[in-house]
């Protein structure tokens, strides 16, 4: 009885070990020719296949539809030379394969671009040696390349090698440790988690190539490889590849008369561990078109790049096992940069995230230009230069938004210098380096321009004694309406130093107590030569002193004042308020047109109009006497229009100083 039980156990174990798991044929629309080998991408969306037909070799690519079916067969590359073992890079935009040349089989690759696939390029001599290399595959991180190499056995026996991507190139390839390499090994095929490795091997008692499975613990440590039970003892199995959608292992069995594609469901222990997949497109924000971008995965601690690749088609895909956080940096030449924090800690099953990045190629820089003293907005001339080429850029778009505000559009990637200039202001320059990673699109910069100042000394002197007069000075820019300062006063010698902005026209008014008032326009415009010193002679008020005004004007044949007279009258108000101890005679004079009686009446009415105005502005009527002199006191003969205009006037005469 015991024997029976033991035998039974042994038989069960035998069957478990040796029974052919359920194999089925793997169906997909085949191109004409004979299938040599195939592989499916890590995400299960692409399939690459080598086919030979009439002595020509072809690599085809399949895409998968939403129903999981393979369709849309496209030729990737063809050659009269042998091609073998195509596999996809993790982002599916590169196919590695072995290419027979005059020097034997070497590993090459083609890249997908927006215009199709490139011509093959060979890996360098750290990979491609004098002997043959076959069946390349990069792992899901893109940093380890697996392949097989014939170590001088003329292809009779190969071993598995690997190389690490370091410092921008593949390091010298190393042999994978035993017991992985134990017999003759080829077709290394890593699963999406970067740990489980399928390969074919002919070792020990088996006469054919069978499929083996091992698990990578570290680069130097693997579990003891396990021969998969469905491997046929007599026929070679080649090209094992895992289909993550169907969760099946696909392989080619070279049977007696033909090669057959098989698929077998794998047990749980062979399935890959969950991974995180991040994929998407990098597009131009303005056009929506995909762009060639550089995608880098950064170590979140040191910010050093772990891996970096170029998206020739704008499409990217990254496959990372869970457990760490990463930072993704996406940029393109002449475009902005985007960072994306990729949290892979929380992955339970396969996590697939679709994240598209829109990059922009220009920034908007708003310049706000101010007068440094007044904070007033200023328009200015803006020139933009290429700092490196020292050349003015005429094609930069500068939009004038409003006074002192400009919007400049600048292409990313340049190093610019700005020169701002404005008449009567010191020029201003600054640099802007857009070669740095740009995250934002809109910027604003305030620029304060320093006005060029003219130093003017104002000296107020008593016209009689020539002594300095202490008084307040009112300086107003007629150009801007701004007062120079709230209060400016001359010193005991009558001097005051003014620093006035070049380019403006100023009105300097002085109303010293006990003196006539003084007013002068000071032109500091660019084309004028301003005086360095202004001497304002003010006459001390004396009885019978007279001041004439030609700009106190009236409507025709009327005593109604014109609005243009108001500023002068306001000045007179100020003068009379400043000197409350004086009494004045206000007289109006006419030319000789019209009758004497008429002119007399008109001038009296006009004088009264002036008195009314001053009265309404707070001057006591007791201080004023209105007189009309008509045509009786001409300054000059009324023999021309010019002279008549001179005679038409209003006069102020000091009658009394208390």
């Amino acid at each position, binding site marked *: 009885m015991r024997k029976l039980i*033991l035998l039974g156990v*042994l038989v069960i*174990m*035998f069957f478990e*070990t040796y029974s052919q798991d359920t194999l089925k044929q793997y169906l997909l629309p085949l191109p004409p020719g004979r299938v040599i080998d195939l592989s499916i991408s890590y995400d299960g969306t692409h399939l690459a296949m080598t086919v030979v037909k009439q002595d020509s070799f072809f690599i085809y690519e399949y895409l998968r539809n939403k129903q999981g079916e393979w369709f849309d067969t496209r030729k990737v590359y063809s050659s009269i030379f042998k091609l073998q073992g195509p596999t996809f890079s993790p982002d599916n935009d590169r196919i590695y394969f072995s290419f027979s040349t005059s020097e034997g089989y070497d590993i090459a690759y083609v890249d997908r671009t927006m215009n199709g696939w490139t011509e093959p390029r060979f890996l360098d001599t750290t990979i491609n040696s004098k002997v043959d290399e076959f069946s390349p595959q990069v792992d899901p991180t893109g940093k380890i390349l697996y392949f097989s190499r014939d170590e001088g056995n003329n292809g009779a026996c190969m071993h598995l090698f690997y190389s690490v991507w370091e410092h921008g190139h593949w390091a010298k390839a*190393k042999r994978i*440790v*035993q*017991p992985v390499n*134990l017999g003759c090994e080829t077709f290394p095929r890593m699963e999406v988690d970067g740990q489980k490795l399928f390969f074919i091997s002919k*070792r*020990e*008692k088996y006469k054919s190539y069978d499929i083996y499975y091992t698990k990578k613990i570290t*680069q*130097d*440590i693997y579990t*003891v490889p*396990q*021969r998969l039970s469905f491997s046929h003892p007599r026929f070679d199995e080649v090209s094992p590849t895992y289909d993550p959608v169907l969760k099946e292992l696909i392989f080619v069995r070279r049977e007696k008369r033909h090669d057959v594609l098989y698929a077998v469901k794998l047990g749980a222990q062979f399935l890959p561990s969950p991974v995180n997949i991040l994929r998407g497109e990098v597009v131009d924000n303005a056009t929506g078109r995909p762009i060639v971008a550089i995608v880098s995965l950064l*170590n979140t*601690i*040191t*910010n*050093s*790049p772990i891996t970096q690749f170029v998206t020739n088609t704008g499409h990217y895909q990254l496959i990372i096992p869970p457990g760490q956080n990463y930072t993704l940096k996406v940029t393109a030449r002449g475009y902005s940069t985007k960072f994306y924090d990729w949290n892979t800690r929380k992955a339970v099953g396969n996590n697939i995230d679709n994240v598209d990045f829109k990059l922009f190629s220009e*920034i908007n820089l708003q310049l*706000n230009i*101010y007068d440094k003293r*007044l*904070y*007033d907005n200023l328009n200015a001339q803006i020139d933009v230069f290429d700092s490196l080429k020292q050349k003015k850029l005429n094609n930069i778009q500068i939009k004038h938004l409003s006074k002192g505000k400009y919007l400049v559009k600048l292409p990313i990637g340049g190093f610019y210098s700005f020169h701002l200039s404005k008449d009567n202001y010191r020029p201003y320059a*600054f640099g*802007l380096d*857009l070669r*740095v*990673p740009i*995250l*934002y699109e*809109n*910027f*604003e*910069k305030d620029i304060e321009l320093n006005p060029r100042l003219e130093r003017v000394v104002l000296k107020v002197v008593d016209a009689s004694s020539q002594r300095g007069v202490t008084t307040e000075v009112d300086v107003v820019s007629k150009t801007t309406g*701004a*007062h120079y300062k*709230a209060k400016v006063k001359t010193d005991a010698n009558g001097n005051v130093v003014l620093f006035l902005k070049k380019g403006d026209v100023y009105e300097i008014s002085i109303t010293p107590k006990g003196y006539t008032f003084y007013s002068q326009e000071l032109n500091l415009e660019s084309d004028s030569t301003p005086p360095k010193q202004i001497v304002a002679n003010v006459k001390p008020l004396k009885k019978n002193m007279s001041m004439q005004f030609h700009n106190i004007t009236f*409507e*025709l*044949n*009327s*005593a*109604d*004042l014109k*609005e243009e007279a108001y500023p002068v009258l306001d000045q007179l108000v100020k003068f009379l308020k400043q000197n409350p101890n004086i009494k004045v005679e206000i007289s109006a004079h006419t030319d000789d047109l019209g009758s004497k009686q*008429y002119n007399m*009446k*008109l001038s009296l*009415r006009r004088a009264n109009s002036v008195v009314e105005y001053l009265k*309404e*502005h*707070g001057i006591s009527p007791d201080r004023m006497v209105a007189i009309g002199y008509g045509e009786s006191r001409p300054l000059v003969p009324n023999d021309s229009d010019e002279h008549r205009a001179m005679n038409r006037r209003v006069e102020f005469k000091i009658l009394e100083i208390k």
Partner: protein
Amino acid sequence: MKKIRFIILFSLLFLSVYPVSAQRLRYKDIYQVITSGDNVLAYSLLLEYQKSNPGYANTYFQLGLISFNNILNADPFLEYDKIKYFAYNVRLYWGLAEKYIQNDKSEVTRNRKYFQNVPELAKIKRISQEDVLGYISTRLNKVNDYVKELDKIYSLFYKMVSDYTRTVDHYRHIIADYAKLKDLYLSPTDEIFPRLDTIRILFDSTMNMYQLYRAAIESYPLKKYNQHLLLKPITLYRLEGVTNTDFLNDTIVFWNYGLWVKDVKDVILGSIMNMRTNIAIHYNSMMALERKFLKTKVYSDKYLGYFLPSPVIYQIEKYDINSIMTNLLEYNKIKTDFLAYRLHVYNDTTDSLTKLIVRANSYAHEDMLLTQMDSMLRVISELNVPENTRKYEGFFHTNFPHGLAPYIAKERVQNLNMHKKDFEHFKYFLYRDVFHYSFDSSYVVYNNDTIKLFISTGQPSKYVTMDVGKDPLNNLFVAGVENSGHKWKIFVCKLTNTTVQWLKTMPINKDFTVPQIKLYPYTDGVVIDVYETSSQAQGNNTFYRFDQIGEQGFTFRSNVRSVPRFIYYDDINNFLIAAYKGNDREEPYSADTLIIEKWDINKKQKIWRYNFVHTGQFVNVLRYDSVYYAFVNYTKFVGTNGKAFRSGANDVGVIRITESGKIMPFRPLEKTKYFYLIYTIKLSSQKFDVLGFQASPFDFKHEKFGQLPPLKSIIINKF
């Protein structure tokens, strides 16, 4: 036997499933692998050999050696854990090597050749136990030193990385929260300063860690790393400082966040604080002035509004364009102007000296200020959103604890009420001086008879007042008809301070009646226009002039048979303008012909006369630089060129005629749609004021002051 068979069979079975290399490991082969340099293979072979030969000292020596080399080759920052792991292994393996060498004195001599794969031992001809132990000891010390120093360096390095990364993160959060630097400047300091200080502290710590790290690697250089720092300033907000640095690069680039924080704080504590101080100073000063003006009861023209310097506004606008604060300050500045202006004498109802034109100008100015204030309040209301007010949180919290909305509503009402009250003052003078309405039924007694100082109807008195007016010197003239027994005469008198200076009478033509008299007082006297009609449909207008002492001047007659509605006498040029319409004493809204004429008094000659097809009412005439502007209400007007103007309810239009009589195109006043004009005032050589009601002339009669709708004033630039 059975057992053995079972065991053999079982083992064979498993052997077939799990083929294992049956090859026996020989140490010399392993040593070959060691010397070939394939440390990875050698390590796994040594581990395998050790299992079956646990006492073999060289195994441990070689394992320790491989571990030692792994430590030296490992990246101190990226493979720190590996270094620690192999450091442990080195101590373990070489500890065991030492033990087994010390236990067996001949161990080394017996296996001399296997200790020669290190240069220091290879050059010794006959390696002894002491040589090997000495080698192990020095190498162990080296490992211990290395690990100890590396621990320190590693800790400093990663603290520096951590602090800088946190600095960058905090900075990024700030630039994400504040799109513009100006918004940051204006945010409340208790909100932003802690965040800035956090950045500064972290950055200072980073710099400190960097210094310590540099000192550490200078005292204990690492093979792979000798980074130097490059500090770069942040010159443009959001352009620079947004990215972290690669700490493994030879040059570590740090953005100078410390300097940036300092610069930002300098601006906030400098320019912004200065701006806020200025705001507070000026606002409080304006409030104090407003309060003072509201309390003041004394009228004077000396009051002036607050002087708000332009740089204060510009300073705010530099940081906050279209700011709620600038609008609030400017509103209050205008309000002080308004309050100051209201205290001017024109608004004093006890003042009788100020001329109507001055009052009209003043009221127009007040009206303009009110419009400005209202407009500003509207803008403030629109800008009253949290993103604007939080920039001045402290200010609004202090001055508007209940928010701005109630303040705005209250201000609107208050301003309007003040203005309405002032307009009532103006209306009082307007009706008194222009329409001669009496507010107190005033009259004077003359020769025991009363003369009413307002337009009256009926005949309870000897004197029936038909028109009243003041000259520029405030003398009052009254004209009307006198009932002397059964005979009627025309009278005109002058009053100074309610005392009749003189009274003159003129006869009325036999069988004629006098439906209307119009007078025009001027500086040197008065002109009156007497309209007489007879039952035989005869009529004429006779003009008389009297000077200030009552002496009669010119007299002449116009044969216009219509009631005079307005006369204007230019005593300087001695011209007279008169407008007539209809035959009713009170001017109805009628289709009667409107007649306007001009007379040269010197020549007693009519210069021009125009008859207009006009449905409406005549108002008055203003003179601007030799052009007469005649204002009319109309629903229909036909110019002399035949062009007709019509309106729905009522519109206001202007007939313009030059001194010489040239008619300029009739001009409807667009601003006065559906407006009933009652008077116009010449404000200056460039402006006039139209006064009237936003109502239809058919809706009311304006005899009773108290029942009038609101009077409206519109300032129009002369065209």
